Every structure is written in C-alpha cells, then in structure tokens.
C-alpha cells in the first residue's frame, strides 16, 4: 500500500505508523465518561474511513488519510495540523 503524503509524495506504507480513527476529539474538562468514549469507543465501518497515520520514517507529519476499508483505496490524505492560511 502506498500513502500519498502531502509533504513527501506517494510513499511506501511501511514508512508510516497507523493510529486509527481520526474522528474522536479529545474532550477537555473532567468528564470521565467522555474521556472513556474518546479512548475506547470506535466504529468499524466498511467503506470510507478517516484515519490517522504518522510518517515516522519521513517528514514526521501526522496525516488524516481517507481510506476505504474494503478496497484499501485512499481518496484523500492531508496534514492533521490545519494548513496555515496562505
């Protein structure tokens, strides 16, 4: 599998570290229930899925990669950090 890193171009997936679902947002505050959901509750969709990958052997950027979990087709890959306004 090859991942189109927006910084490095299409690279071998072995350069990357997979983290998982990109959707959960870390809750602030003291709500243990919300933190539990953030940590442990995950959907497992068949189809398009936005997930986090770390280009550990490359530019060290965290990426949001949209990958189809059925076909492995990658339709989008962008930096997790919002791009600075031009």
């Amino acid at each position, binding site marked *: *599998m*090859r991942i189109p890193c927006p910084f490095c171009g*299409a690279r*071998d997936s072995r350069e990357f*570290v997979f*983290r998982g679902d990109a959707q959960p947002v*870390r809750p*602030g505050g*003291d*709500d*243990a229930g919300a*933190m*539990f959901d953030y*940590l442990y509750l995950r959907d497992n969709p068949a189809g398009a899925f936005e997930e*986090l990958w*770390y280009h*550990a052997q490359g530019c*060290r*950027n*965290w990426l949001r990669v949209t990958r189809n979990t059925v*076909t*492995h087709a*990658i339709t989008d890959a962008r*930096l*997790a*950090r*919002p791009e600075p306004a031009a």
Partner: protein
Amino acid sequence: MSAQPFRLAHGGLIDRSRTLTFTFDGKSYTGHPGDTLASALLAHGVRLFGRSFKYHRPRGVLTAGSEEPNALVTLREGARAEPNTRATTIELFDGLVATSQNRWPSLGFDLMAVNQLAAPLFVAGFYYKTFMWPAKAWEKLYEPLIRRAAGLGALSGQEDPDHYEHDHAFCDVLVVGAGPAGLIAALDAGRAGLRVVLADEGAMPGGQLLTERVQIDGQDGPAWVAGAIAALSAMPHVRVMRRTTVFGRFDDGEHGAIEQVADHLPVPLPGQPRQRLWKIVARQTILATGATERPIVFDGNDRPGVMLAGAVSTYCNRYGVAPGRRAVVLTASDSGWQTAADLIAAGVTLLAVIDTRAGVPEILTAPIRAAGVPVLTGGQLVAAKGSPLSQVIAADNQGRRHSYAADLLAVAGGWNPQVALAAHLGHKPVWREDIAAYALGAAPADVSAAGAADGVYGLAGAMASARAAVLKAAAALGTALTPAALPAAQDTAHAVSAVWATGPCKAKAFVDFQHDVTASDVTLAVREGYTSVEHLKRYTTLGMATDQGRVSQVNGHGLLAAATGKALAETGTIRARPPVVPVAIGAFGGHHRGRQFRPTRHTASHDWAAARGAVFVDAGQWKRAQWYALPHETTWRQSVDREVHATRNGVGLCDVSTLGKIELIGADVGTLLDRLYINGFAALPVGKARYGLMLREDGFAMDDGTVTRFADDRWFMTTTTANAARVMQHIDFARQVLWPDLDAQAVSVTEQWATYSIAGPRARELLAAALPDSDVSNVALPYMGAVAMRWRGYAARLFRLSFSGELAYELSVPAHLGAALVHHLCDVGTLFGLTPYGTEALGVMRIEKGHPAGNELNGWTTAADLGLGRMASKTKDYIGRIMAGRPALVDPARPRLVGLKPVDGVSAVRAGAHLLRPGATPAPSHDEGYVSSACYSPTLGTPIALALLAHGADRHGEDVVVHDPVRGADVRALVCDPVFFDPAGERLRG
C-alpha cells in the same frame, strides 16, 4: 559420459558445441547450455523424477514450466541444497547435482509405495476421519507417521551460505511475461516514452515464440525475439528483467517479484546475491502471462510418460528432445493437433491421435491422416498403463478398444489463461464458454490481460490483443500512442471443448498430481456436502500444493460442476492468492539476518569503550557498555562492584548518549510540556532542569526523563533509551493533532549529542580540571542547574543531574566530538582515579536510590504505583489525568513500589519472583506482587531489590516470602523504603 539417445539430431535453442555434466541421484549425465534439468534427463530417456506426496506413486515430467507439479527435486547439496525445485525450470549448469525426493530407499524401489495399498484410508478428508481417536495419539503417533510417509524434500538444516537482497523499481507500465504479447506491449509502451518494466520468469524471453514452429515478420520466432529485445534494450526507460517472476500483486500498483540472480550458476558470483526480491510499483499492469495447459483426468493419467501436449512440443522444438519414441496424442483442443504435427516433424512414431470431440475440422485431421496416423475422433481414453508408460488403451466412437504400445502420451485438455495476479486483490475471474476457461472478464482500471492470458491464442490475435492493452494503459496514463503496424503473423486454430475426464475413471485418475487428489476424491467430497469450490479445496487439499493448483484447479471445478449439476459460471473458481510460485523465506528476509537483522547503533565513543574492555549489551538497536572488565577480573560481578565502589567513593564516567533527546522550540513549549507531563513545567526557570513523568492517555505511566530550559522559548528533553521514538511520536501527536494551535516545534537530536555522566564525590574536582574555563561551583551550577557553554569552540551543555545519587554532571558535546571528550576526561581523570562504568553499575546505583526504570515503567504501573503520585499537578490538565483517576487505578490495594532486603542478608532476591505473605500457599490467588529489579549492592553489602507489592506503601517493616519456584527456593525478605541509600539526597546536592 553417457549418450543422449532421445536428443534429436537437429533443432532446439541449445548450444550443442558445449557439453555440461551433471548428476541425478548420483548418476552422471550430460546436457547442453540452454537445457533445463528436465530436458537433459529426458534426452537420456529418464522418465522417473520423483514420488508423489501421499501414495508415493512414481512420477515423471508433466510440463515444461513453473507450473510443474511432479518433477520436484532437491537441487545442490549440503548447505545449498534446495528442496522442491522444479526440474522443468532449473537451468542446467556444469557440475549440477540433483536428487529425487520422497522415496526410500531409492527412487526406483520405494517401500512407502505401500501407501497405495492403503489408499482407501487416504481419501478426501482422511485427516479428519481416520486419525480422530484417541486424541493423545495424534501428537505421538499419527502426526510423526504421516509426516514421514507423506511429504516432499527436506531442508538441509544448515545455515544458508548465500545472501538475498531487496530492491525497488518504479514504472508506468509493468508487463508481466515476454512472449509475443508481452514483447509487443513493451515495445509499444516503450516507443510511446512510457517507463516500462518487462519481467519474464525465463532466462530467455520469447514465450511461445521459442516453443512453437512459427513465422513472424518473415523470421522464425527466436530471431524476431532477439530483434525485439535489442530494440527494447536500446530504450533507456525500458528495463527488461530476465529470470524474474512476478508472484504477487498488492495495493496501489505494488508487485512482488523474485529475480533468480544466480540460481543458474553453481554458486553466486562474488558480491552477488542468489536471489533478489523486487517491489515493483506500476501505474498500469499488463498481464502477458500466457496460459497453462490442462491435463485430462483418466485412469493412470499420472504415469511417467504422460505429458501435457504443449510441453511435448516445447521439448521437441525448444530443447531438441523427443520425450518418447512411440507417442499417442489425446486432445480436447485444436492445439493437440499441432503437437501431433510437431511429433511427426521430430521423427517420433505417432501411433494415434484421439480427440474427445466428435466434429474435428478436416484441416486439422487431414495432414495427420496423410502421414498414416490413425485418428480417433469422438474417442475416449480408457487407461494408461505401465510405469513408465508402456500401454495406452483408447476407445473409438463405436466403443471399440484400441491398444497402443506407447511410451509417450501427450495430453491437450485446453488452456487456462494465467490471470492469478489480477485476482490477488479480489478480482473474480469469469467463466468464458468460448474458450472453456476462466478469464479476466471486466478488468480493473489498472490491469489488462494480453495474448493467451486474455484467451487469445493465435499469434496475430495475441499481438493485436497486446496492442489493445497498451492503448488502454496509455489512455489511463494520458499518453498519446501512435503504434506502428503489427508484425505479420498467422493465427492457428485454437478451438477447445470443456472435457475434464475421459474413460471410466475407476482406478487412480488424478486431478491434483502434487497432492494426490483423484476424481473419486472430488465426487466423495460432493457426496459429503462439500459442494463449493472453496470447501472442495480445503476438504480434499485440491490446489493447495506448492504449484497452487495451476494445472489441476479447473479440472477439479469441472468435476465438481458435473457432480453437482451446476454450470462452471455458477461454481466460480477459487480465489487465487500470492505467491504464484513458491518464494524462499530467505528472499523475504533479505539482508535482515544475523548481525544485520536490524541496524546496530554505536555511540560516539564505542571504540574507546571496546578498547577499555567493555562488554556490550543490546539496548534497542544500541550497543551499550554493560561493564568494563579489567584483565584480572574473572566474573562480571567483580567488575560491577568495583565500578560502583569507585563511583560512590571517587568519580565514575558513564556514556549516556543513548538516552532519547528532543529539542523543543516555541513560545508555547511550556504549555505543551504541562500537558505531556503530570508535573508542571511552564514556570521552570531558564538554566534549570526538572524530572518529569508522562502518562499514556489511559492513565498508565509511559516514560520519564528530564526537561531543561535553556531560553524562554528553547527547551531540551531527555527520554529513556527504549522509548525515544515512541515519545517523539507522542509529542508530534500532541502538538500536531491535539493542540495544533500551540507554538511548539520538536525535533529529535538523540544522534546529534554525545553525553557523558560524571558522577561521584570527586566529580566537581575532575570537571574543574577538565573544563578550566567553566565555573562548576555549587553556586554557579547547583543541583538541577544547567549551562550552555563551549568546548573546543563547539556548543556544549553541562547539566547537574544525578541518576546515581552522587554529586553528578552530564556533559553533552556534538556527537563528532564524543570520542575526543571521553579521551580528554580520561586524560585529566587519571589524577582522580576516574573509572568508566557500564549499565550494570548504573542499574545497581539506581536500584540503591530506588529510581524506577524500564522494569518498573512497564506499562502496568501508575504514577502512584511508582511512588510518584505526589508529583501530579492538581491545577492543570495533562494526558492521562482523567483515566489515572479511575477507581481501579487509585485502588490502595494496587502493587506499589517498595524495597526488599533478604532477612538473612545474603540470599539473592531475583527479579520476576512473586511475593507471598509468610505462611500463604503459593497460588495465584495469594499473589501479592512481584520483584521488578534486583541486584547485589556493594555499597550496602547485601542483595537488594525493588518490587511492586499490594498495599506496599503501608507495609514497610513487614516480612514477605519471595517465591521463585523456577529458579530456586523461597527467600524471606524485609519490606522497606525503595530508597536504600542516602534517602535525604545529601550527596547529590553537595
């Protein structure tokens, strides 16, 4: 040297001017360059190549290619012996040694052939039926028995003396197979300027142009191929890869290929690998992989001398070998008639041609009849007899029997396009009635099949089909293509009918030769309810051998369809999986073995340490000095005790360069650190260092280290050696994903700094002497202070940090100066008795000081477990804060860090031992914790240990039993504070 009685007088792409000598089962034979092991043995009349997997049936050569199921031999001897090598693909070299397999005591006389008598036991699913009871007997009796009786070649058991390497290639178009279709595809794509890789499994490109007697552009096949290869070689953007088999297709255009760099040589050339594993990334793939001929199932169809018709033609035309003297052709396809013509041309006596089809065009039969050969259309094959083959019994369309004293039976059951590569990503081949085979069907956007792989068997048609495939690929790539006229060629007849079996099939009629699956196994499986192709495969093991069912699979499906009354379009075919051909594990390992299994990292002063007698230990990829043995020291303990004593009473030097080091820059680094560590950092003054503990988000301790502030916006973090990469990733996650609004950059500088710890009561004196320009007084550089300075003109950093509990400093210089610094410190240090110490002494001193390290930061411990709970800030959020408050993580009954001393003062307390209350039965329910780190303390003169003990913080002064049933007896130990030495910390502040 023996003669080659079956070698034809003329023809073949072999170099008759040179003779090669080789041995098979100890007997000497000869051949020529261009031969395979199979063709050379056939030239000598050798028919018997091996014994079958289950029944030990004698077997000969079936094919002339990589799909060979029968003629598997062990190639070479000793450590280079390679079992299960296909004799049909082994290029002959001088001195080649091969042996047959799966026979005892000899190939000709095999005692295990009695398995045939027990054949009723070995039917489909016999594993599941026969060896069920008693369960105990499976391990002791049945499995060893089956393993000895059934099987293929054996590994040498010695280390492989050759090496294997990995490489990558990138292209616009990957063309797999260099037959006429592949050559046209590569020429077209190359001429359009596309980057092309053309990979062919053989030594000689050309495919069917080498094996069939054809004319192309007025030339014979091999001559045209030579011209095409020359044209391709002249294009710098085209790479022709010989002896390279593309064995798998993966996501995003990645292909696995194995290049047999030196398998055709006795040993690899100096500096060359034996094989090279390629990852070829292609934007478009054209499968010009050809088609594999199908056998036909009949009684005795596995007799040595029964051979696929295409293979017979190949041996005649390419190798100049007659695979027999008196031949019969059995065909269900037009191509069998071509073989009949080839046999006549080769001077073989053709006894009969039997076509299972009733209506065979006159154009095919007429030339054969004209040669005086009997033709049976609408015939059947009743049985093949003799080992090797001596009699063929056929029936004509009236049911009359005909017997032929034949030593060769050429079988043409039709052709299966080789589209397994396209199926690797889940594409399902479809049944095509017109060619009676499964083919690619509606291809994925980035794959095409061309020529025989697309079911187009004629030469002109194959080239036109390749042209169409290139046009599709070029369109997908946005490249304009203006193709030249295709070479002139004729199409031959290639009609085929779907015939799977012929004759009674009552005795041994094989579907899968390599796994000994018979027609009756298939019908039995169907009777027992295994009616899907995937169930059939698993129940009978049809197609599960090393040949991946390339010759057997579709016949099995045909018989299944017939038995279930389904159409082949309905049954479908099994899902092909990589690899197409067996690939040695060594090729996947590549250079990653032995010392090169993973990178070895040396610190800047590695050579200095080695010269000082260091014994190294692996710390991740790093080599760290474990201790420095002096010549008179005979045990490691002597060295370690000396190093500890010297450091506690004088001054020691330790290379701590392997610690992870991260430089952080930005206005918000303090805020980021506050969120990464449980304790506060934002208020840390410039020039100060602080110890910190990080948690994972689930509340468990992750890593510890120090952070030093060198300017308002410039910070320096250390991590443990083991977690350096993980912490870097964690920080990047925090600053890029969790809090991208923070102004904080981070970069690993682990390899940029060489760092040495100078510890002991005389550390300051030594440093003052070694760094005369720096003020190292307690006022200028107090405990936990840090200064940026220069050493020999380069940036350097001096920290007042202590892991040992002594007055201690860490001095960092750019890595290229590390060795120079160590030599300088040692030169100055002779006055002070400076003693280098390794990780063992470091470990002893940190246990004496009760510092948690890797054994305690093991992923199961919380800050409170480690006695660090009070560090946790109550006034800020940080990663892991909420989850660390879960009830189970704040349970006072959790194991907490304590110290242990043996009550008798001498018994060793071993790490890993479990803790029990005195008098408790050793049982998991009474387990109260475990010893995490242990050592002999030369400072205290007694063994000591750190342990994690339930309610540990409240049990200082109690006795526990250290239970170690594996390594020794129980030891009574006293629970104490984990800080054994200088609990007030006076030494490190002095």
